[in-house]
């Protein structure tokens, strides 16, 4: 069974069409780069997969089921913003994840926090933007999910932490799960991907295995991206 099946998916905002009749099938066991310039529909597609956007046309299935509380149990989502309440500390959100997600590992979370030098008792509202991003990544990667949806996971962190984060993502990857990651820092993460999807103005303009694309085009994904999306 396909992990993700998207049929004729469209999303319209007043005055603009964010996604245009997308058809896409993704299988388990891949690290997929979702690439495109600003406004190409990457975040919208991710929000639809995670159930943050329900107002769309077309069909989205995850492991054969429409997006619902059942698929949310399979998907681990890292949004491009902080979603914590002001009262929370890492230890509170850890307890919350443990309560709601059966696949959450407290030990893994604590070990990642420690590696990144985060204090589990510190109020999240007193943390810097980079620290909050690291914390969210720790939460997301401490789950043994079927699908990881990562929206710009390394966008706001320093280069030193970037390597740790990429290593973390890689070490948590297994053949039963798929990672769908959007990023603008293609050169930094290109080595991770085995599949890429190029989105342009709401349409899929390229979808394939990275080795095939490199061989066919004779250039790196970063170079190809710059060529396809040249302003």
């Amino acid at each position: 069974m396909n992990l993700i099946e998207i049929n004729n998916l469209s999303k319209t905002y007043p005055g603009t069409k964010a996604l245009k009749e997308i058809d896409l099938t993704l299988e388990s066991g891949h690290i997929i780069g979702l690439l495109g310039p600003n406004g190409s529909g990457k975040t919208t597609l991710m929000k639809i997969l995670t159930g943050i956007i329900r107002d769309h046309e077309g069909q989205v299935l995850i492991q054969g089921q429409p997006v619902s509380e059942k698929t949310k149990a399979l998907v681990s989502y890292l949004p491009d913003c902080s979603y914590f309440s002001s009262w929370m500390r890492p230890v509170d959100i850890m307890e919350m994840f443990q309560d709601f997600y059966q696949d959450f590992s407290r030990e893994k979370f604590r070990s990642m926090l420690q590696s990144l030098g985060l204090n589990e008792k510190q109020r999240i509202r007193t943390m810097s933007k980079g620290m909050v991003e690291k914390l969210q990544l720790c939460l997301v990667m401490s789950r043994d999910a079927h699908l990881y949806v990562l929206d710009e996971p390394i966008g706001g962190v320093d280069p030193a932490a970037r390597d740790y984060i990429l290593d973390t993502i890689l070490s948590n990857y297994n053949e039963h799960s798929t990672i769908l990651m959007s990023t603008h820092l293609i050169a930094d993460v290109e080595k991770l991907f085995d599949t890429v999807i190029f989105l342009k103005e709401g349409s899929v303009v390229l979808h394939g295995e990275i080795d095939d694309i490199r061989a066919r085009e004779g250039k790196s994904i970063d170079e190809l991206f710059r060529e396809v999306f040249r302003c």
Partner: protein
Amino acid sequence: MLTKLIKYDIRSTWRDFTGIFLAILLGVILVPMAMKNFSNELVQLTAGLVAFAIVIAVIAITIINLFKIYNTNVFSKEGYLTMTLPVKASQILTSKLLVSSMWITLTGIVSIIGMIIFTLIITPMGLDQLWIGFRALAEQLDGMAVPTLILLALVIILSITKEVAKLFLACTVAHLKFMAKWRIPLGILTYFVLSWIESFIFQITGDILFRLSGRFEELALQLQSMAGSATPQEFLGLFNGALGIGMVYSLLLIVGFSALTIWLLNHKLDLD
């Protein structure tokens, strides 16, 4: 999952409501003491203003927290966490309705206790005299008042829940994409439109019942004559019936408002 949601909704709001309760209790002790011990007009005026400020603050903080429980938790960035939890929209809404109603009810109870404390400090009446008065009233009603009081409490709680459900529906409507430009005024307008529809349906239902039942007019006259010459027990019986109807009315509207909210969350949710 519902109990877990309730746990986290309480954890996110208990600090604010504890603050409200402390403000109420502090106010009802300090204000009457100042009024009683100082004959100076300025002190009395200030005490009155402080009491008024506390009442306004309690109302404002309660409303802000209702928004925090639902609007902030679902439609702000916090919604990225809330709405990706593996729970049904109906469970999220039920949890928030229950917790909001619980806090409003507790605020009401603390306010009543506050008023009793206020009265005891400001008047020479002692706690024993208050108890004697309460027992005399209970004896006169011959124990019949207990079910009525329970029913009355339930009707009040259900009508609070109904208003909260209406407020949540208005918030949800205000977050529809086509409302984005005028979200706040349209949200407020939606609340008043819903209130108007509610009173309109109430009136129409009453009229239909009145016309459908040939005996309704006769029954109304009978009830009117009974109310005039009824014993306290008979009056309580009539009152209980009216409360029962009020409960059903509130329950139906809670279900209606909630069903609409759940449908919108399941089909029209679109977080920025």
